[in-house]
């Protein structure tokens, strides 16, 4: 069953560009920060979250209708911006979930403002660097290389990543290239050339009860990073999801949302 998200533009004031926020579902509110790819049309993970929560997913500037990306130069700008969006939504203190780049932003926010985040779920977050396990260079990949990089089930990945795309249509292709340049151009300010902006020095500040989730077959960011995050965040637990790659959110959405529900509903 597909849930139609409500999409609206949220004002931040002070002359800043408004932000596009997707919203759906009922019950406990939850904020979801997407990864470098953004939200897909009919995003499977957003749908799954909406099945159990009242989910709010703001799009980072550079993604979809969210503009103002030129004003965000670095990690601090981006983290403070995200905090402002959550504040504008009236959701400070709500459970915070982030995937990949979104997980990096969520972890930064929880470290920067430890009293504003109560429950934190980091799904294959970026933000650390281990010399023995270099994160793959997402920025030098060609489109056809992505399913293998991002999925355990490569065939499933191919069908999910190309759903609704017509790369033979020049008009669509042009839009796609522009969108890609905007999205990954913004992502590069946090992740290029090495996705380390000093988070390891701040993770110890996080007070939120934290769940770290990782696909066992993640080839973009090895699951060993899960151990590094778990070791650095005081009140945290690591859960490895079998038969899932970096986009564990798309391969095992039910499993991931159940784990988040356990975290959020725990006393």
């Amino acid at each position, binding site marked *: 069953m597909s849930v139609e998200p409500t999409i609206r533009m949220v004002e931040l004031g002070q002359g800043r560009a408004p932000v596009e926020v997707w919203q759906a579902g009922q019950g406990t509110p939850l904020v979801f920060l997407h990864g470098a790819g953004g939200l897909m049309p009919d995003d499977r993970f957003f749908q799954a979250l909406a099945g159990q929560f009242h989910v709010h997913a703001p799009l980072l500037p550079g993604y979809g209708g969210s503009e103002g990306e030129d004003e965000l130069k670095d990690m601090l700008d981006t983290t403070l911006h995200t905090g402002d969006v959550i504040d504008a939504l009236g959701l400070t203190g709500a459970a915070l979930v982030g995937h990949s780049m979104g997980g990096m932003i969520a972890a930064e926010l929880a470290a920067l403002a430890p009293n504003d985040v109560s429950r934190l779920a980091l799904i294959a977050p970026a933000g650390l660097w281990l010399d023995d396990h270099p994160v793959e260079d997402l920025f030098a990949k060609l489109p056809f*290389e992505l399913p293998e990089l991002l999925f355990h089930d490569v065939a499933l990945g191919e069908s999910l990543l190309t759903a609704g795309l017509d790369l033979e249509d020049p008009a669509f292709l042009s839009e796609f290239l*522009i969108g890609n*340049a905007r999205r*990954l151009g913004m992502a590069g300010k946090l992740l*290029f050339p090495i996705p380390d902006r000093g988070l390891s020095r701040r993770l110890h500040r996080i007070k939120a009860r934290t769940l770290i989730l990782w696909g066992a077959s993640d080839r973009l960011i090895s699951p060993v990073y899960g151990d590094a995050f778990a070791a650095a965040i005081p009140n945290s637990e690591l859960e490895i999801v079998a038969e899932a790659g970096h986009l564990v959110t798309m391969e095992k959405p039910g499993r991931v949302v159940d784990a988040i529900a356990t975290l959020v509903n725990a006393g």
Partner: protein
Amino acid sequence: MKFTWFNLMPWPHLSEDFRETNRSVWVDIPSRLYDPQKGHHVYNTYLDQLEYAESLGFDGIGVNEHHANAYGLMPSPNLMAAALARRTSKAALVVLGNSIALYNPPIRVAEEFAMLDVISGGRLVAGFPVGTSMDTNYVYGQVPALTREKYAEAHELIIRAWAEDEPFSFNGRYTQLRYANCWPKPIQAPRPPVFIPGGGSIETYDFCIENDYAYSYLSFTGYKRAQLLMDGFWERVDEMGADRSPYRAGFAQTICVAETDAEAKELYAEHVNYFFNRCLHVYPGYGDAPGYRTVKTIKKGALSQYTRSSLGSLGKLTWEELVADGHIIAGSPETVTEKMKELINGLKVGNIFCLLHIGNMTNEKTMLSSRLFAEEVMPHLRDMWPEWGNHDDRFWIHPLEDRLEPTVPIAVTPNAAPSNSNGGAAS
């Protein structure tokens, strides 16, 4: 017309099966493929050729900057220009150029360019490329979406450092200097002529036109493919109300000259093939880091030459096809003269960057092709822009009249007694 003899300085020892056994000639090419002992000969031969070009009467000799690139062996073009500054006295030293977003702090470029200008007696042409994505983003780690902003800030600092007579404070986002103070300053005041290498970013047009910098289109696909892009440049010149001096623009062209058309093929085809097949074997994933191009440029469809799928297939083209499509201009002096006129009139350019050494071309062939071009082609192209007096002061060097000539080193005779007791180290 101004002719600059330009050497990309390719590594000439890439194996026959380089394409099949390596992903890319650039960025991740294993450095074990570089042999420093062979490199000694390669560098010195290439420098000899640049010096020879001056003796042939070329107006400029050109070097550029690339990193982790087997077709461009000059991570530091300023070192090459410094070597040339001492051994030449007439030609412009066209450093095309320093990727100013990569120098930290970028006042380093103001200083080194000033040194080159002073040593050479005012012969420096200062090039400021944004740099390719391969060099700037992948090899030198700059954040793609911030590269242009960093470049603009570096440019502001350098130009100001040359112009100011007193130390000043510079509070940039990427560089903060309490004492910005360029010692030495260039002979050419307030600045040497500036050339901006461009590869299709439309922001670069406006930047050049506004500042009277020469737009330099460095393409390997030849003059016919360049028509659309250069038309766009001249349209922009008109829109901005600037004059149409041909010296506002330059073009790089691969050129091969022999006694006859047939001889050109016989002499040069294998080297051209080496260049297109092995040197241009760039992994497409390194072509354009997302965010490096502005949305405005992508919308215009003026994408980098490296992302064109056609580039990969250039290596498969026959000599005849490469000639017919204008990727290379090759043949007898008559043929080359005719094609060069077509290029100059078509693109309306006053500067030509002559790529006369190609791929793994031998020194003898390079000298032959260069000499034939200088003696039998160049003279017929000198009067292409009579209405501009065949020269534009804004876009060329202003050397000192009484600059020094290269000197023969003073012989050191080990047995000669020191003429005074302070000379020489105590033994």
